């Protein structure tokens, strides 16, 4: 009967209970939506970085990444390539030659990372071809085509078919230069691509570097759900003379960002939960204070304090039980809908792309995230009910009975 009394007590003051249930619904929805939105930001950034920059994993000569010395090519790269091509979880693989050098136009010169690629393989791994905003993907130029980012093009004041000169040291330490013609302009949210990279054909690059068929980098993508770190470890064990890294090792900034987002989300949840907790405390305290005489009467008749405590806690938990699922359902529906249609932030696209985000975001939450919200709400309701319930059992029946 205590459960029945608690349930009916919740609805004694319908308006007040509905306000607190409404606050719960909005709070939970805000948590779900906020979490999903932030998750989409993070996923968009990480996926974009993996897709266009780091790939899921890379292989280098152990000394190459220290200072990009072109002498350190990957040992026995055909074996690694074959192994990766035969691995089920690997989606696509490409090889690259890399060198740091200068790019100059008739107006400007700047430092640049020059990447020699095989266009077909590169398109499969990084979808570089999809980033072309002007010109064509290594087409329309008969010899020495180069792709550069839109920001670099602006800086150099060049357009499609403009001439640029790439200058760098060859394998023997001699300064060498090649005249290239811009085949296409790349537009990417990644600053590395749009500002400081130049893509040329690997064959052109290797000829100028005088390194034969050697490659400095193997990049591979994996199918969704692959444990990239485990795959990198397997590969490393098989080819100990080279250095295999997953995207987490290649770009610690992405890992930091993942952790930073998780921390921000936690702070957001704590803020919303705290607001919710104070709302619950306020409501339940009011409910206790206006029922002092009644609570005193219950204890006078012989109702144990622990049962009074339980009754007040049950009232709070009932509020959460009504508000929680509704808020969660609305949150789930919002995320499910926006996860399909996406949130169009085109109005802010310039700013977003400048810092590496896509302008359309697709909110998403994992089942575990929903579970965390549910646990969070129940815990908050439970903790928030303790003070009003404690206040109720601290009443002395004799004093409470004489309260007007």
């Amino acid at each position, binding site marked *: *009967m205590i459960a029945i*009394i608690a349930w009916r007590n919740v609805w*004694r003051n319908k308006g007040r209970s509905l306000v607190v249930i409404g606050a719960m619904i909005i709070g939970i929805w805000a948590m779900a939506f906020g979490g999903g939105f932030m998750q989409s930001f993070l996923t968009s950034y990480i996926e974009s970085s993996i897709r266009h920059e780091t790939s899921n994993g890379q292989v280098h000569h152990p000394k190459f990444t220290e200072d990009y010395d072109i002498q350190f090519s990957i040992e026995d790269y055909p074996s690694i390539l074959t192994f990766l091509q035969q691995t089920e979880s690997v989606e696509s693989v490409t090889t690259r030659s890399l060198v740091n050098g200068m790019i100059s136009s008739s107006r400007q010169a700047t430092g640049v990372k020059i990447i020699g690629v095989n266009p077909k393989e590169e398109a499969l791994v990084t979808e570089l071809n999809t980033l072309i905003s002007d010109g064509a993907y290594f087409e329309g130029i008969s010899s020495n085509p180069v792709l550069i980012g839109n920001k670099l093009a602006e800086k150099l004041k060049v357009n499609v078919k403009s001439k640029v000169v790439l200058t760098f040291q060859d394998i023997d330490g001699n300064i060498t230069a090649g005249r290239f013609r811009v085949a296409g302009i790349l537009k990417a949210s990644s600053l590395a691509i749009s500002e400081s990279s130049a893509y040329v054909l690997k064959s052109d690059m290797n000829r100028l570097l005088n390194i034969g068929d050697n490659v400095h980098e193997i990049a591979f993508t994996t199918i969704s759900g692959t444990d990239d770190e485990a795959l990198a470890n397997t590969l490393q064990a098989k080819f100990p003379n080279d250095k295999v890294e997953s995207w987490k090792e290649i770009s610690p900034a992405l890992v930091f960002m993942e952790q930073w987002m998780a921390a921000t989300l936690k702070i957001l949840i704590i803020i919303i939960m705290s607001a919710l907790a104070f709302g619950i405390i306020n409501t339940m305290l009011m409910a206790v204070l206006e029922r002092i*005489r009644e609570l005193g009467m219950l204890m006078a008749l*012989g109702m*144990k*304090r622990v*049962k009074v405590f339980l009754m007040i806690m049950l009232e709070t938990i009932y509020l959460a039980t009504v508000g929680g699922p509704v808020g969660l359902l609305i949150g789930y529906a919002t995320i499910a809908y926006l996860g399909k249609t996406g949130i169009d932030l085109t109005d802010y696209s310039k700013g977003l792309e400048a810092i590496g985000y896509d302008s359309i975001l697709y909110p998403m939450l994992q089942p575990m995230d929903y579970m965390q919200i549910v646990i969070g709400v129940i815990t908050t309701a439970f903790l928030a009910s303790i003070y009003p319930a404690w206040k109720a059992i601290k009443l002395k029946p004799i004093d409470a*009975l004489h309260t007007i």
Partner: protein
Amino acid sequence: MSTIIKAINVSKVYHKTTIPVHAVNQLSLSIEEGEFTAIVGPSGCGKTTLLNILGGLDQPTEGRVEVDGTDISIMKDSELIDFRLRNIGFVFQAYNLIPVLTALENVEFIMLLQKRGKKERHDRAMELLERMDIADKANSKPSQLSGGQQQRVAVARALASKPRFILADEPTANLDSSSTNNLLDLMAKMNEEQKATFIFSTHDQRVMDKARRIVTLEDGTIVSDVKR
């Protein structure tokens, strides 16, 4: 008849640290089983304080109260709650029914706290409501009942736990004449039929007329104790 309550040299002093007020002063009183007693006196004479002490809701500053030979003045709070549940029925001036429960549920509630079975609870609650002439309102909430009807439910609730005695603090103060007479007749009937022991605090002459013993208080002490 056996003695149910024995108050021995009971005193209650409020505001001991500032100006002391002796609400009850060196009072001794015995209540026998089956009595229908009214404690009367002017406002502030200590009626309610005495009832609270007899009912284990308040502790005396001095002296002791024994119920069936057990000293309840030295009981811990948790022991007193259980003691009240098993031994004492309460009827309050403001009825104090649980507003979210029906009349039937209100009467059943006290038996639920005593962990009695569902059928027993229901049967006894219905029987008491019938005896109190309010069975037709069994499924009504307190807000749907008049003051007199609510007080009859409160008496049924007090009787439901089969207490050793019932304390009623000015039970007719908020009732009109007709409801008062009706309630008093029903309580007198319960006293006779079920040998229920009633102790009232009142300054209602109609209650005094029905009482078979009148204890008059003044300044916290008994100035007369008349049995009729």
